[in-house]
């Protein structure tokens, strides 16, 4: 499959600071790609370079096999949706959407009636036809965003680029608009790249996620790939909640500083960082267990706990019913099992999966939340 956009060795410096440092990336036709990273990771710069609003110091950008660097923004056929929408404030919604069709050279310009028809079709697509005569300042944030999208789609772009498309909206509207954009993309099928710093947004919306940090790409993959098999410590920390545990690996076991074992790992030795997601930790009642419950927040479907283990505090999230069955409270001792994790040895670029201490057999995993280790009867709180 040939890439719709292929980026090779793109570098951009602002003074001494490298905003982008040798970035290679392929965008596939028809996909919805997320550029995800913290602020200052270079994601917006990369998007603007794809659009042609900014130029790289070195490297190339190809559109469908053709060098895009030779082409000016207006010739690239990109629809750019700005973070703050950048609607033309002195034009009505209709005029805004029609703009791209009206500024075409006379020979390529559509007849007036055809332009009006296309604009109304687009406004219907974004469900805003009834607002055609309003000015941008009379619209809500979500409506402005959709007008900006319709305006960008009007020129039938080969690529749609969105800079923090939901950044300026409140949480509820953001969630609705996210779903809506996903279904719109399924209808329109235009190759789209969007920038976001919100990992939830990227994981929910995108076909593939590009995780960026410090002007470099850390990992490219499907949401499941980047979440479950993060390629670097950064990706692990950036995507979702995680515990960062300093440990050393001896004899196939990962040990905390005080020697408490947390998991098994083959083929490595020496100090390493273990990343463990809170929901990958399970607890079991054990009066002499190594863990001590330090804090409990048990409202909602998950009980959020802080458990002290081997001198460090670990965030743990277990289902509310498991927590109820555990029957423990603050200050109680528990057995702690790390079901999964990733180990990053010093100076390693790739992570190594960490297995639970006891091999997880079907029977064990069935009774995991009960009292296998300590031999106590199942305890039900009244």
């Amino acid at each position, binding site marked *: 499959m040939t890439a719709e956009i292929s980026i090779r060795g793109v570098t951009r410096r602002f003074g001494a600071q490298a905003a982008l440092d040798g970035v290679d990336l392929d965008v596939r036709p028809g996909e919805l790609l997320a550029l995800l990273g913290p602020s200052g990771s270079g994601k917006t710069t990369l998007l603007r370079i794809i*659009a042609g*609003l900014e130029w790289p110091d070195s490297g190339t950008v190809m559109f469908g096999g053709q060098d895009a660097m030779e082409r000016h923004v207006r010739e690239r056929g990109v629809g750019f949706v700005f973070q703050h929408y950048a*609607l033309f*404030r*002195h034009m009505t919604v209709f005029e805004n959407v029609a703009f*791209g069709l009206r*500024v075409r050279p006379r020979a390529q310009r559509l007849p007036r009636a055809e332009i009006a028809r296309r604009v109304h079709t687009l406004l219907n697509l974004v469900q805003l036809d009834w607002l055609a005569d309003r000015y941008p300042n009379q619209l809500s944030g979500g409506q402005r965003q959709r007008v900006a999208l319709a305006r960008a789609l*009007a020129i039938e772009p080969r690529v749609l680029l969105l800079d923090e498309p939901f950044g300026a909206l409140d949480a509820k509207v953001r969630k609705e608009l996210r779903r809506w954009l996903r279904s719109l993309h399924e209808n329109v099928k235009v190759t789209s790249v969007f920038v976001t710093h919100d990992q939830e947004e990227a994981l929910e919306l995108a076909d593939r996620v590009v995780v960026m940090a410090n002007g470099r790409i850390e990992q490219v993959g499907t949401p499941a790939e980047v979440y479950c098999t993060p390629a670097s410590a950064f990706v692990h920390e950036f995507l979702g909640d995680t515990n960062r545990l300093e440990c050393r690996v001896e004899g196939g076991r990962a040990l905390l500083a005080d020697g408490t074992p947390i998991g098994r790992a083959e083929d490595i030795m020496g100090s390493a960082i273990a990343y463990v997601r809170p929901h990958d930790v399970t607890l079991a009642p054990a009066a002499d267990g190594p863990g001590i419950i330090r804090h409990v927040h048990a409202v909602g479907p998950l009980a959020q706990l802080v458990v002290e283990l081997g001198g460090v505090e670990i965030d743990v999230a277990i289902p509310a019913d498991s927590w109820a069955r555990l029957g423990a409270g603050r200050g109680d001792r528990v057995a702690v099992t790390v079901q999964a994790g990733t180990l990053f040895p010093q100076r390693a670029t790739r992570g190594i999966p960490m297995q639970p201490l006891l091999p997880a057999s079907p029977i064990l995993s069935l009774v995991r939340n009960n009292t296998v280790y300590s031999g106590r009867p199942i305890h039900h709180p009244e």
Partner: protein
Amino acid sequence: MRIDVNQPRPAPAAAASAMSRRVVRVTESAPVRWALTAAALGFTFLFLLLPLASVVVQAFAAGLDTYLSALADPDTLSAIRLTVIVALIAVALNVVFGVAAAWCIARFTFRGRNLLVTLIDVPFSVSPVIAGMVQVLLFGLRGWLGPLLQQHDLRVVFALPGIVLATVFVTLPFVARELIPLMEEQGAEEEEAAISLGASGWQTFLRVTLPNLRWGLLYGVLLCNARAMGEFGAVSVVSGHIRGATNTMPLQVEILFNDYQIEAAFAVASLLALLALVTLGAKLLLEWRHASELAATRRR
């Protein structure tokens, strides 16, 4: 005190009205507010309305016929014509310079940008008389470029070009000063959006940049126009006071005044004041007619 348990509670409405009586004004006390209002109105009356009214009263003191004949005087008519011509040229040049300068300053960062911003303010900080002197120094008979101009039989000083140059110098900052903060606040995103939608540079400028600037531009033009018509000091130096040829309205007022033609002086003065009022009236009218659109372009 005995509390009667059976006593009916005050109705909610009564409670509410009791509350509303205790409205707390988060502002200055009444005497301060009255004093400030009186001061503002007093100054407006004393320094703005009273002089204007006295100009009009003086102008018509000897009757309407005298007023009209004073204005019909050939020298006065020539002064009016010259003033209008100078103002038109100055405003046009100011718009071109103002838009170009504001665009450069607001859209690009370059070495010497701050210096340019400061330089634009020079005419405001320099006395107009100096502005006139500079023209004489440059283009006068004994000036740097004087001999060259004379060879080609061109007159700058004591002629229309000198008056225009002096006026342009004095009014230079008006449009640029209005536009620079406006453009900086608006940012370049709309222009980038226009270009990404396929608009050429000119299309972007004419359809997006300029419409967004039109109100700032209008204010700049009105201020510039008022100043261009009223400028006295700089023009006085370069004009040479040739009656019927190089006198603008302010100069004509002075000459008539010095000639003890008080009524005529005030007649011309009232006309000059009227021009200023018409300009302000036009601004008000436009603001009133386009109120909603104005709000739309101001706010994001």
